[in-house]
C-alpha cells in the first residue's frame, strides 16, 4: 500500500482535476445531461487527447501503460465532477477485459481505438433475473456452422445505450446458473437483431435494456476462452466495484466540502447552523465516513487487478461495503444538513446523493458483498 503519488500520478491528477474544474462545472454538466446523447462526444475527444482514455493501455497502442492506481486518480476526479461519460464501461470494464482476455492484432486494434477516443464499449452481462449473481446467464449462443447465434436479454447495461461495441456474455453450454459454459462475444452495438431500450440511470449515466434476437456473429467474435469466461467476468465486476470506490471517494470529498461550507454560511436563529452541536456531530460522522472510505480505496486499488480471485474478491468486497455505508452517511447527511435547498435539482448536493446511491447498487450491493466477504 503506497500513500504517495508517483510523478505520472501527480500529472494525471492535475490534468483530470483541471478538466473537471474547468470543463465539467455543474452548469456544463447540466447541459450534457439535458442533451439527447447520453454523453458529450466533444469531451470524450478531449479525454482522449489528454491521455485519460489510455491510462491502462500499452504505449504501443497509444496509451500510457499505467496501472490501476493511475486510473484511480482519474476516477476520483471524475467522481468529484459527477462525470457521465462512459468511462466506467469503456476504460475500466472494456479495457480491462481486452487487456486480460484478448491477444494479437484485434487486441491492439481495439485498444488503439479506445485510446484514440473512437471506440466505446460496454459489458452486457447482467440479466433481468440475475440480480448480482454473476454466474446467472440465460442468454444463449448457439453454434451454427462457423457462426454463433445469440438470443437473450440483458439488463441495466451501463453504457449500453451508446457503446460502439458490446461485450456480451452468453451460454454456449450448461444451465442458467452453472459456473462453466459462459462465453464472451464482441458484438457491434447496432448489429442486426439487437434491440435497445435506452434510458438514464439515477446518476445520469446512460444505460439500456438490450435484447438479442438471433444475433449472428462469426466464431472470431469470441473473446477469451469458450465456456470459461466466468472468471473474466468476475474480474471485470471487481474492477468495476474498485473503480466505483474511487469515484465515491471523489464524490464524498466534494460533497463534504460543500456541506461544511454551508454549515458555516447558512444562518438560522442568528448564528451559522454549524454552531448547533447536533449538526457538528453529524458533519463529524460524515468526515469520518469519508476517511474510512478513503482508506478502503487504497485496498481496492491494490487488489483491483489481483490475479488470485479469492483474495481479490475479499478485498474488493470489503472496500465496496465500507464505501457504500460511507456513501449513505455522506449522501443522506449532506441533503439533511442543507435542509430544503438540499432537495432541489438545481443544487449539486442531491446529485451527489444520487451518484452515491447508484454506486451502492452497481457491481454488487451491500448484502451481496458482505455475503461474499463473510463466506471467503
Amino acid at each position, binding site marked *: 500500500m503506497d500513500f504517495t503519488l508517483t510523478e505520472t500520478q501527480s500529472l494525471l491528477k492535475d490534468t483530470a482535476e483541471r478538466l473537471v474544474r474547468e470543463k465539467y462545472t455543474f452548469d456544463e454538466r447540466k447541459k450534457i445531461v439535458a442533451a439527447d446523447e447520453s454523453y458529450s462526444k466533444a469531451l470524450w475527444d478531449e479525454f482522449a487527447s489528454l491521455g485519460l482514455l489510455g491510462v491502462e493501455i500499452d504505449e504501443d497502442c497509444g496509451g500510457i501503460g499505467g496501472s490501476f492506481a493511475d486510473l484511480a486518480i482519474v476516477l476520483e476526479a471524475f467522481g468529484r465532477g459527477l462525470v457521465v461519460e462512459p468511462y466506467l464501461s469503456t476504460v475500466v470494464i472494456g479495457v480491462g477485459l481486452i487487456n486480460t482476455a484478448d491477444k494479437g492484432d484485434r487486441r491492439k486494434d481495439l485498444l488503439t481505438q479506445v485510446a484514440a477516443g473512437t471506440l466505446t464499449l460496454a459489458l452486457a452481462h*447482467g440479466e*433481468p*433475473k440475475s*440480480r*448480482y*449473481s454473476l454466474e446467472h446467464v440465460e442468454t444463449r449462443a448457439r453454434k451454427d456452422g462457423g457462426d454463433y447465434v445469440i438470443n437473450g436479454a440483458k*439488463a*441495466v447495461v451501463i453504457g449500453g445505450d451508446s457503446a460502439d461495441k458490446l461485450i456480451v456474455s452468453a451460454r454456449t453450454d450448461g444451465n442458467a*446458473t452453472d459456473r462453466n459454459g459462459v462465453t464472451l462475444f464482441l458484438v457491434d452495438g447496432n448489429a442486426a437483431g439487437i434491440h435497445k*431500450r435506452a*434510458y*438514464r*440511470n*439515477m*446518476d*445520469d449515466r446512460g*444505460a439500456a*435494456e438490450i435484447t438479442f434476437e438471433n444475433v449472428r456473429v462469426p466464431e472470431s467474435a469470441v473473446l477469451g476462452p469458450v465456456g470459461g469466461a466466468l472468471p473474466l467476468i468476475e474480474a471485470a465486476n471487481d474492477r468495476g466495484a474498485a473503480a466505483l470506490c474511487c469515484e465515491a471517494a471523489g464524490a464524498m470529498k466534494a460533497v463534504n466540502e460543500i456541506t461544511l461550507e454551508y454549515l458555516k454560511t447558512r*444562518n*438560522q*436563529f*442568528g448564528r451559522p*447552523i454549524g454552531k*448547533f452541536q*447536533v*449538526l457538528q456531530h453529524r458533519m463529524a460522522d460524515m468526515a469520518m465516513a469519508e476517511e474510512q472510505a478513503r482508506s478502503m480505496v487504497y485496498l481496492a486499488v491494490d487488489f483491483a487487478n489481483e490475479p488470485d480471485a479469492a483474495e481479490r474478491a475479499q478485498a474488493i468486497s470489503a472496500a465496496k461495503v465500507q464505501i457504500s455505508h460511507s456513501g449513505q452517511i455522506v449522501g*443522506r447527511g449532506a*441533503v*439533511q444538513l442543507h*435542509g*430544503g435547498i*438540499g*432537495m*432541489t*435539482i*438545481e443544487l449539486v448536493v*442531491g*446529485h451527489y*446523493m*444520487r451518484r452515491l*446511491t*447508484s454506486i451502492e*447498487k*452497481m457491481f454488487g*450491493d*451491500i*448484502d451481496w458483498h*458482505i*455475503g461474499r466477504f463473510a463466506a471467503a
Partner: protein
Amino acid sequence: MDLKYPERAARFADEVRAFVRKELPAEIRDKVQRRQKITPEDQRTWQRKLCDKGWACPSWPKEYGGPGFDVMERMIFDNICSEEGAPSALPFGELMISPVLFAVGSPEQKAQLLPKIRTLEYWFCQGFSEPGSGSDLASLRTRAVQDGDDWVINGQKMWTSGAHNANWIFMLVRTNTEVKQQEGISMFVFPMSTPGITVRPIVTMDGEHHTNETFFDNVRVPKTALIGEVNKGWTYAKLLLGHERTSIARIGQSKRELRRLKALASEINITGAPLMDHTPFRDRVAAVEIELLALEITALRAIAKGGSPGVEANLLKVKGSEIQQKLTELFMDAAGPYGLPFDPDRGLHDGNEPIGFDEAASLGPNYLMTRVVTIYGGSNEIQRNIVSKTLGL
C-alpha cells in the same frame, strides 16, 4: 402483524374497506399503489366520493361537516384507506388551517371556508417558510402593512408546495417589527387569484415539480383575510404545526408500503430463493415492522389523550418520517440493479412495458423524494430540540 381492535372496530374496518373497494376508481388506486403522480382531478374525484358518504375530512367533528369519528375509528379509517390505495388527504386544508379556524376563525370565515375546504373547492397551500426563515420560522420577513381597511403584503415565500394547484393560501406575515419576533406575526388566508402573486416552480431531485417559490408584490387583501387577532399568528401557527407534524407520521401509508415491500420481496428471487427469505433482508424488514407497530400504538395513545397535539406530535413526526425513509431504502435494496433506471414520471407512460418489474420505476424517485420528510414540517433536528426542551434540558 396486526393490532387487536375491539369487535365494533372490526365491523367498522369492514365497512370502510367495502366502501373504498366499491367507490375508489381502480386507476387511481393503481397510481397510489405504484407511487405515481396523483392529479388534482384524481384527488377531487376521491374527495367527492368521501363527501357523498359523509366521510370527507375524517378528523373533523360533526358540527363542521366531518364524520365525527372517535379515536379508534379515525385510526382505522386512515389505515384502511391507505391500505386500499386511496389518495391520502391533502393536509393543508383539512388538517392544517381547519383546526385553526375551529379554534379562532370568525363565524363568517368558518361559514365561508370550511364547507369548501371539505369539498376541495378551496384548495390551500401553506406560505410559511422563506429563503432566510426555515427552521427559524419566527424570523420571517414578508410584511403586511395596514392601509385603510386593507392589508398590503410584500415579500417572498419559499417551498409553497402545491401552490401551482392551489386556489387559496394561508400564510404567516410580519405585522409588527418593533416587538419580539414571535409577537409580531399574523396569519392570513386569501385566494391565490389576488393580484400581485407570482408562483415559480422548484423542481426537486426526483425530477418532479411539487413545490414553488411565491412572490408577493403589493398584494392587497381585505381585513377579513386576517385569522384571529393581529400579531397572534405565531400561537396559531404552533397549533397548526402540531397537526402538520402528526399528519407527516403517515402510519397507514407506511403499513401499505410494508405490505407491498413484503409482496415484492417474495417475488424477487435471489440465488434461487425469494429475497424475503434472505435472512439479512428479512430481518431488516422485521425491524422496521416492529418500529411501525410501536408507532401505531403510540399514535393511538396520542389520539386517545385528546386535545391539541403536544410533544407526541414531535415524536410521531420523527419516528414516522424515519420509518418512511427506511421503507424506501428497503425498496431500493429489493430492487437491486432495477433501482438504477431513472424515470421522473415513475413509469407512468402509455403502453410501455415497465423496466425490470412493475413498480420499479417509482422506487428511485420515491426514495429520493422521501428524504424530505425529515426536513419539512420542522426538521427532525428541530423536533428533537423540542422534545429535549420538554424533558427540561
